């Protein structure tokens, strides 16, 4: 066994690369063979190269007030074709069930009348926007883009950790990671066919055009950003540029007579589809926060009148409430008459009769999550929490059982990751990872970018994958079954980015000890 894999021991979790110490899983054989001859100095050198490329392109995040490159580990995360097929069918199923739920919740509300989901879940959700009632998406799509967070459990089984159907971010990492990996480490790609990810912007654009208001044959699409101060501004700018559409802020759009126009140097031009990376609350001061200066007054009315389509739809937050998450398997059975292909993590709802006591009795053995916590905020891992933290938690849960779910702790799977070892030398060590596949729904198909964003917790034993907690990411490969072996992955020949470096990264915070999920629900 080569130097860098020396003393690689698998932890009490599923390891992505090794079946057991010294035995490489088949999908990883080529990568293992390519990496093994390298020494740790070379790995470090290439990692630093990638970091410099990120700094140069502005793929950075703010860490203690300092702009740092988002750490990209050079050992890729692999999914073989069979596994990816299974996983993507599971994600597709889930997205379709959530679409059906949203259409129902903002329509006839059958799912509640039929007793599958309690009414109070809807009425008590701060994201149930009654102002969105009556807005009919032209092609029926509300979840144009979603990020379904998955983890692989101890048995190697993928489970859904949470759904993000509002403004999921992170796809720019997927694109940038692949770009820099192919430049820095072309040899790694030489031995096997890896499915490209650069199709994403065109798929997204096609889906956005497909949801244009009826009768518009050549729709104008824009990306609406909260502005340069937003943590994901780089992503907004990147997607607009790769799609070849305008990046606008609220002040660039003006509504009149229920139509939306964009101010340009050549006057005002019509806009038909808005890929908005702005939270509902800030979208239209007439309907939501009146103090929002980054929104567009009148935009809800224009959407209501059917003259503009907002993607994702307003009010989707009722579907990624973590309490609703617990009902998603039921929703799949109810709407699709199918069994869920991807299980949830086992979850208890403290708000149900009798379950609160059950949760309180074993707080030290459960993971408690606020139903509305973005960026992993407020998550407490019982087994790792101090006694007084658990006592405080017990009080909070007792005061608001609707506000929490309880899950069994899942040991996220591990992947070999370049780390500083105890002896001061660099080497590969197991680090916990998750996966956020991105799905684009165009009304006829739910398409997944092959792979998605793999986040890695860089500290030993750490389960937190947030960049704000020292997390990084990995290039995620889906191996193609049929493609020619020498084919390299998608690299777009685009001009050098004119985007200046700025804060970029999962803006979420998390409490120590949680497998915190960045959500970066913007603003």
């Amino acid at each position, binding site marked *: 066994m080569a130097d860098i894999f020396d003393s690689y021991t698998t932890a009490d979790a599923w390891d992505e690369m090794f079946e057991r110490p010294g035995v490489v899983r088949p999908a990883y054989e080529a990568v293992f063979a390519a990496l093994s001859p390298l020494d740790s100095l070379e790995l470090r050198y290439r990692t630093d190269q990638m970091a410099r490329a990120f700094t140069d392109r502005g793929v950075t995040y703010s860490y203690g007030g300092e702009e740092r490159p988002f750490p990209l580990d050079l050992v890729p995360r692999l999914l073989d074709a069979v596994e990816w097929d299974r996983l993507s069918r599971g994600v597709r199923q889930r997205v379709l069930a959530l679409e059906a739920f949203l259409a129902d919740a903002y329509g006839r509300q059958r799912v509640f009348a039929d007793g599958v989901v309690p009414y109070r879940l809807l009425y008590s959700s701060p994201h149930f926007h*009654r102002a969105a009632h009556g807005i009919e998406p032209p092609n029926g799509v509300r979840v144009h883009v979603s990020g379904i967070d998955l983890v692989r459990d101890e048995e190697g089984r993928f489970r859904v950790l949470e759904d993000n159907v509002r403004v999921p971010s992170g796809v720019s990492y997927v694109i940038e990671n692949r770009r820099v990996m192919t430049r820095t480490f072309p040899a790694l790609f030489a031995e096997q066919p890896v499915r490209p990810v650069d199709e994403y912007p065109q798929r997204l654009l096609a889906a956005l055009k497909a949801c244009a208001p009826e009768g518009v044959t050549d729709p104008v699409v824009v990306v609406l950003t909260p502005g340069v101060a937003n943590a994901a501004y780089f992503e907004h700018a990147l997607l607009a540029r790769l799609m070849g559409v305008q990046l606008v802020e609220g002040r660039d759009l*003006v509504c009149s007579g229920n139509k939306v126009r964009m101010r340009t140097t050549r006057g005002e031009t019509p806009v038909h589809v808005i890929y908005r990376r702005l939270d509902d609350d800030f979208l239209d001061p*007439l309907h939501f926060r009146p103090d929002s200066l980054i929104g567009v007054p009148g935009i809800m009315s224009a959407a209501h009148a059917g003259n503009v389509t907002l993607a994702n739809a307003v009010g989707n937050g009722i579907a990624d409430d973590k309490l609703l998450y617990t009902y998603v398997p039921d929703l799949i059975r109810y709407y699709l008459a199918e069994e869920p292909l991807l299980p949830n993590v086992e979850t208890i709802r403290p708000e149900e009769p009798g379950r609160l006591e059950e949760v309180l009795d074993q707080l030290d053995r459960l993971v408690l999550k606020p139903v509305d916590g973005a960026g992993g905020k407020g998550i407490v891992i019982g087994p790792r929490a101090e006694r007084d933290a658990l006592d405080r938690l017990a009080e909070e849960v007792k005061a608001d059982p609707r506000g929490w779910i309880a899950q069994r702790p899942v040991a996220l799977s591990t992947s070999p990751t370049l780390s500083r070892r105890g002896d001061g030398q660099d080497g590969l060590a197991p680090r916990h990872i998750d996966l956020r596949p991105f799905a684009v729904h165009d009304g006829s198909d739910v398409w997944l970018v092959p792979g998605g964003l793999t986040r890695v917790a860089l500290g030993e034993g750490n389960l937190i994958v947030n960049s704000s907690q020292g997390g990084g990411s990995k290039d995620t490969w889906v191996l193609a079954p049929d493609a020619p072996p020498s084919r390299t992955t998608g690299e777009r020949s685009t001009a050098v980015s004119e985007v200046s470096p700025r804060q970029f990264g999962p803006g979420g915070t998390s409490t120590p000890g949680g497998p915190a999920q960045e959500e970066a629900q913007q603003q």
Partner: protein
Amino acid sequence: MAGRLRIRHETRVGYPSPAGSSYNEVRMSPLTLPTQTVLDSRLDVAPAASLWTYWDYWGTQVTVFDLTDSHTSLSLTATSLVETAPPTPLPTPLDRAEIAARSADSRLTEYLSATPRTTVSPDLAAQACAAADGLDAHQTAAALTDLVRERVSYTQGTTGVHSGAQDAWDQRAGVCQDFAHLTAALLRAAGIPTRYVSGYLHPSPDAELDRPVAGESHAWVEYWAGEWIGQDPTNGTRPGESHVIVARGREYGDVPPHKGVYRGAPGELPQVRVEFTRLA
């Protein structure tokens, strides 16, 4: 015996410096219901704007318009012609237990939870429950209305559009909006689904025919006792042929007669004038 009323609701806002790009929603069109028929309803806006109408989540007719040119004043004139009916006899209410069972997991649930303006202290909620103990739904509505009317006096100027039920209770003063919020809060605390009603009340039911009299927009509540029953806590009466229903929601925030945002310096307080004419 039906009444026929013409209502003219004028709102005028002046801006000390010109306002630009103004976006507005108006909820002033009365509903056609078994108890009232709208014969005519219109909204005039000055400066002129093109109007668009939709029905919102609560079933209210909403008129939307925007003004993109700068303007120094905005005036809205909503006129309607409505036939109203006297109150029907009170039906036998469902038992409180049956009401609780039917509203536990149904659309009625929405009218049981507190909203920003209908949130009261746990003490006050407990007081409402105690006052309702052993009473049927109608008696509960009457008892809680009395509780509100004993505590709160009708006084203009002590509360504002953003005030809530607890504010009015603490200040012992309020206007119809506060009476309605407070009564709704207490009825909900007692487990009876209650909605907030926005509308108009003719101030003098026996006014001379064809002569306009000044009045105001009004708010009251409806509680669910097997069906929705009106209750006017400000006046301690059941709504009848002098009441005209425009909108129903959980609270004022769901049914504001006019809301708007515009670019510019703060305007003057709106001048509102409501005029009623009995036609039959």
